[in-house]
């Protein structure tokens, strides 16, 4: 909100915005590298059944707890399953959960935020209180309570995380709408008799899109971590599903003697989060209309 307020003091977007964005996109190697990794991850997730060298669920007790080797790149787990294959398959589950959560939280949050910012007045005040409450509510407690009430399952965990995640989108969107609503050109459009929907679609959404895209991208990593954290304490996927957080939880007690068991799923999470974070940051810089004045 603070940043939006600051933005008010800056000139309206310069006309060659798209040209500038394109130029920035071309020259930003961090952006390229991170999008490459993200694309690779999604590709792996889609192609897991064809690339994984071993079936992810098939135990092989005589070969249990083998260190990494040519045969098992990431070693094997307590039941002799190939950790590499499980990490590959795990990308489907872990990324799938992330898309599902944001798929619920983002539309709800942005719609409510746009409505609150545009409508203002009582509705806005009410939403502010509601988001306060949801913000204040500890995600972990809510997720645990929901899981305890409905039984642990991935669906329930997804719902719980989405339930605490949408308010941040609502705030972002509300701030964007508030910032744009006061702009002279929006006032002008309104004076010219443009309808609410038209103003929203033509003036407000295009302005709000860049920070939204950047935030969604950055959030991917955070959501992944939250979901993995819940899986880690046993709320989430049920065995033998190879979700990264659950794999770390499994491997946790083996860390001292069998480091690979928990480390590789952990690295998978780390790489994914870092890639999404850099992608989000780079996108934000590239898309930010007020950035052109800066040094560098």
């Amino acid at each position, binding site marked *: 909100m603070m940043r939006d307020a600051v933005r008010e*003091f800056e000139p309206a977007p310069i006309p060659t915005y798209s040209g500038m964005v394109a130029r920035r996109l071309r020259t930003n190697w961090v952006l390229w590298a991170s999008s490459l990794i993200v694309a690779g991850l999604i590709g792996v997730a889609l192609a897991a059944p064809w690339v994984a060298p071993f079936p992810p669920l098939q135990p092989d007790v005589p070969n249990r707890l083998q260190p990494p080797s040519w045969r098992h790149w990431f070693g094997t787990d307590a039941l002799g399953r190939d950790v590499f294959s499980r990490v590959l398959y795990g990308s489907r589950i872990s990324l799938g959960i992330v898309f599902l959560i944001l798929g619920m939280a983002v539309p709800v949050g942005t719609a409510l935020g746009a409505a609150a910012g545009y409508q203002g007045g009582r509705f806005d005040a009410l939403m502010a209180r509601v988001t*306060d*409450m949801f*913000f*204040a509510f500890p995600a972990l407690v809510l997720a*645990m309570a929901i899981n305890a009430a409905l039984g642990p399952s991935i669906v329930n965990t997804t719902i719980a995380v989405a339930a605490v995640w949408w308010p941040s989108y609502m705030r972002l969107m509300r701030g964007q709408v508030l910032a744009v609503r006061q702009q002279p050109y929006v006032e002008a459009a309104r004076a010219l008799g443009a309808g609410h929907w038209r103003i929203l679609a033509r003036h407000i959404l295009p302005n709000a899109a860049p920070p939204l895209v950047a935030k969604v991208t950055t959030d991917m*990593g955070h959501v992944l971590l939250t979901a993995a954290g819940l899986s880690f*304490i046993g709320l989430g996927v049920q065995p033998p599903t190879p979700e990264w957080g659950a794999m770390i939880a499994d491997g946790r007690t083996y860390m001292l003697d069998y480091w690979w068991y928990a480390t590789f799923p952990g690295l998978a999470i780390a790489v994914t989060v870092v890639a999404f974070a850099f992608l989000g940051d780079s996108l934000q810089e590239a898309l930010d209309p007020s950035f052109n004045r800066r*040094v560098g």
Partner: protein
Amino acid sequence: MRVLRRLITLPAVIWGVATITFFVARVIPADPAQIAAGLEVRPEQVQQLRIKMGLDKPLYVQYVRYLAGLLRGDLGVSLRTQNAVAADLAFHLPATIELTLVAMCLALVTGIPLGIFAAVYRGKTTDFLIRLTAISGVALPVFWLALIVQLFFYRDLGWFPAAGRIGSGVLPPTHITGLYLFDSLLTANRAAFASSLQHIVLPACVLAFGRWATLIRMTRVSMLDVLGQDYIRTAMAKGLRPFAVLFRHGLRNALIPVTTMAGLQVGYLLSGAVLVEWIFSWPGLGDYAVRSIVALDFNPIVAVAMVLSVIFVFVNSLVDALYKVLDPRIAV
């Protein structure tokens, strides 16, 4: 004004959170009387206890009773620890607050300079490396990191203890605030101070590392903002080095991300500390909450959710007020 308005709505938020948690907790298909009586007992015993606990009454009666208890400051009794929840919280909450504060200070002291560096060297390798380190702090699974840190600094080097808040055989300081470091300073208890300081180092460092990501990122962005300002350009045109300029003119602006982070992270830090508390056997609120949930122990769950919410609202009101002081342009 907004700050005051916000504080006025605090009771409403508390009521809302209490209500949600109360009903969510009652949906849990477990019988608190059974849990309180022990899992081995006979149904007659359970029924007897159910009546004693008032669980035979309709849900709305239980709800009204619960709210009435809240007004009196009575949070009920924990079935698991058999203590009053308020007494449990009086121990576990300060433990978490202490850990959080120390971690926050560590993060600030190290994170802000790094954020400034990153801004100054924007686009250079230094910038990339700092950001990579920062993001790793949150991206690496915290339990993994905690365990590695523990193995290295405790098992291999023996520099710091691995578990708990204070050494075996060292008596905790007299309870004043519940923050061991603070209390032992107040009572000039050197043994307790040294021991609790040793114990807090590893968990606080791990937590602080996790806080870097947001902090460095925000410092960097706001410094980039500052770097673009005319007065900075002028200063630099006068031949001053960027660091000097930034430390002189930019730090005030750096306080804004710090404040924002404080607001955002307090809520997160408390619940985010669970895994760190677990690995380092830190008897904090997260640890308490997880154990209560595993034991399906209602009263502590509701109480923890409420306490966290209150802290969150309170800190955020404070943050709003600080914004006003720091940057009068912001219309809060």
